């Protein structure tokens, strides 16, 4: 399919503010790691960040660092470093890229932020296996390497309903983290501070939901590719006022775009749902590929995973448990399919793209017949593309292009 004109990439004005608060966040982390008073916790992206923040920890998210390694295309060179010490190329390429970066003394933070050498040295590592087992393996390696405590939540998995029994379980597991965290931080947990943090997290994710739902407008004012960039504060700064302020600004800009009928993709003809991880090292290429075809990839499971409607300041720990259990990735296919069906309807989707990420089985929902079941139920066609989140050795650009172009041709024949 010939590209008649170069796609226009519309810059979101709020990006500058996002860069600033992300920069402030990384410098603050760096300062915390150097200070004697402040403590640093590493946390998985849907781990108990609210608890850590309320206890005064500066919180680093290794998944965020790994995504940066992917987006800067440093990952593929670093993954083999972890492979050589026994971490297979078939396991999570966030894990292998991040550990590889540590072994090589390399970090995108050092390139982007003068004065920062790399991720902050942790005082404690806190995981939640609601995403996968790999996060526990990942943190365990650092625990041994850096001789710091590693604690976490072993999450139930593959359930359809978030039952009270499951919430009881995870609530107790979160409570069990507190003594160790108090010992490391040297401070008692302040319940009021925790309530405030949970309230801010709730506000942040509610705004993030509203931001993502602007894409229900026709034409959509933002794409999945924009979302992967602008979700940064929702991941690393939830529970803070900065994140809340930022999403208010972003939301206002997107609402203005809707009022002005500004499309993220000029001449939007096809509305696409993205299921699975982004290919971080190909964000720009994929964004341009779809734009050329007048296809707007406007909503995704991935970006929507940082919407936690269950946070409740009145029941901070129990609502944290409920929120972490509500995560898409940890649920059964029955739940996931119902969720996707609602999204297809809400966003008026014409086609679904499943990214089968070689090293991320938990985020690859095309392996147990879901595309076929959903297609049969909804009549909405789907395409599975093979790739990976970080390891570009698993990505074939030519195959991706041909598959996507053929898929859009198929939609045009409908």
């Amino acid at each position, binding site marked *: 399919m010939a590209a008649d004109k170069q796609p226009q990439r519309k810059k979101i004005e709020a990006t500058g503010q996002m860069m600033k608060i992300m920069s402030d966040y990384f410098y603050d982390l760096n300062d915390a790691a150097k200070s004697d008073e402040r403590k640093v916790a590493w946390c998985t992206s849907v781990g108990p960040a609210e608890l850590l923040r309320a206890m005064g920890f500066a919180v680093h998210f290794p998944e965020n660092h790994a995504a940066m390694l992917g987006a800067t295309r440093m990952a593929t060179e670093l993954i083999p470093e972890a492979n050589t010490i026994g971490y297979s190329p078939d396991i999570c390429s966030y894990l292998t890229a991040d550990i590889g970066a540590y072994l090589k003394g390399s970090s995108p933070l050092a390139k982007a932020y003068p004065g920062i050498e790399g991720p902050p040295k942790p005082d404690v590592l806190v995981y939640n296996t609601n995403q996968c087992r790999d996060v526990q393996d990942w943190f365990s390696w650092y625990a041994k390497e850096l001789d710091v405590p590693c604690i976490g939540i072993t999450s139930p998995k593959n359930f359809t309903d978030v039952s009270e029994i499951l919430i009881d379980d995870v609530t107790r597991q979160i409570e069990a983290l507190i003594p160790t965290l108090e010992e490391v931080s040297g401070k008692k947990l302040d319940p009021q501070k925790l309530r405030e943090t949970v309230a801010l997290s709730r506000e942040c994710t509610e705004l993030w939901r509203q931001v993502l739902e602007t894409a229900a407008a026709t034409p959509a004012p933002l794409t999945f590719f924009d979302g992967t960039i602008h979700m940064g504060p929702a991941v690393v700064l939830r529970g803070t006022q900065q994140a809340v302020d930022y999403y208010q600004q972003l939301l206002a800009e997107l609402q203005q775009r809707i009022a002005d009928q500004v499309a993220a993709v000029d001449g939007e003809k096809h509305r696409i749902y993205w299921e699975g991880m982004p290919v971080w090292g190909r964000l720009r290429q994929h964004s341009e590929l779809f734009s050329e075809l007048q296809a707007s990839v406007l909503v995704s499971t991935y970006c929507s995973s940082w919407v936690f409607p269950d946070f409740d300041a009145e029941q901070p720990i129990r609502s944290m448990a409920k929120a972490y259990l509500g995560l898409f990735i940890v649920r059964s296919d029955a739940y996931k399919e119902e969720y996707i069906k609602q999204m297809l309807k809400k966003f008026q989707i014409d086609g679904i793209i499943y990214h089968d990420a070689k090293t991320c089985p938990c985020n690859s929902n095309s392996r147990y017949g879901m595309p076929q079941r959903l297609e049969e139920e909804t009549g909405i066609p789907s395409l599975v593309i093979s790739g990976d989140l970080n390891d570009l050795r698993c990505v074939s650009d030519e*195959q991706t292009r041909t598959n996507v172009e053929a898929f859009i041709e198929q939609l045009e024949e409908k």
Partner: protein
Amino acid sequence: MTETVYVGLDMGASRTKVAVIDHQGRLLGHAVKKSGIDFGATAALCLDASLEMAGVTRSQIGDAVATGYGRNNVDFVTEKNKTEIGCHARGCHQQFSGAITIIDIGGQDNKLIKLDERGRRSSFKMNRKCAAGTGAFLEEMSSRLDIPLEEMNNLARQATEMIKLGSYCTVFSATEVLENIRHGKPVADIIRGIFYSMIQRVLEMDSLTDKVVLSGGVVAHNPYLVEMTEELIGRPVLLPEFPQLTGAYGAALYALDGTKT
């Protein structure tokens, strides 16, 4: 002669194909050459050869469409292009009516394309980033056995038994082949096993409709694969007159379609 013709170029990873058709979609000329490293030169050679066969000149080209792996990378008489999936579908629909499943076995990839009664694509699958079941697999095995590619088909026919290969990895399969040679197994039986492995890899990509069409260069040059497919699926398959030209023919039809809208 002033007849207007329509041209399809299929710039494949292994071979370049050109088809020239008239306003009724009849094939007038065609050419196939190894793609090599200079795609532009190969495309031009194929174009001139097929125009000559059709008895026309470049000035008579009404329109043209390019497809295939190199469709975006070659200077040709057109900037219009379509995916090979679309072109194989278009080419097959022209020749076979009703709902069909097209199995295209190419040099670098396989496609399994389903068309509805009206020739619209309802789904398609391409092989994963892996050579299993592609022409590249056959080329690798031919090289390992030191048997020219063109002799593989006849040798497979001569087999009395079949040595099945257990792996879908080309490298592991090559090791299995060498192991069987070391054990003194007849080469013909091994080659039949190689063919069987190729077809199995393709058939496991998706379910099939009743009517199945085989296309692509690999079946064009290895008719034994067609027989084996029929045996495996338990019914006859349909074969275009020029299986290797299906993509180029479909592209030419798209060029013709474009002039009618």
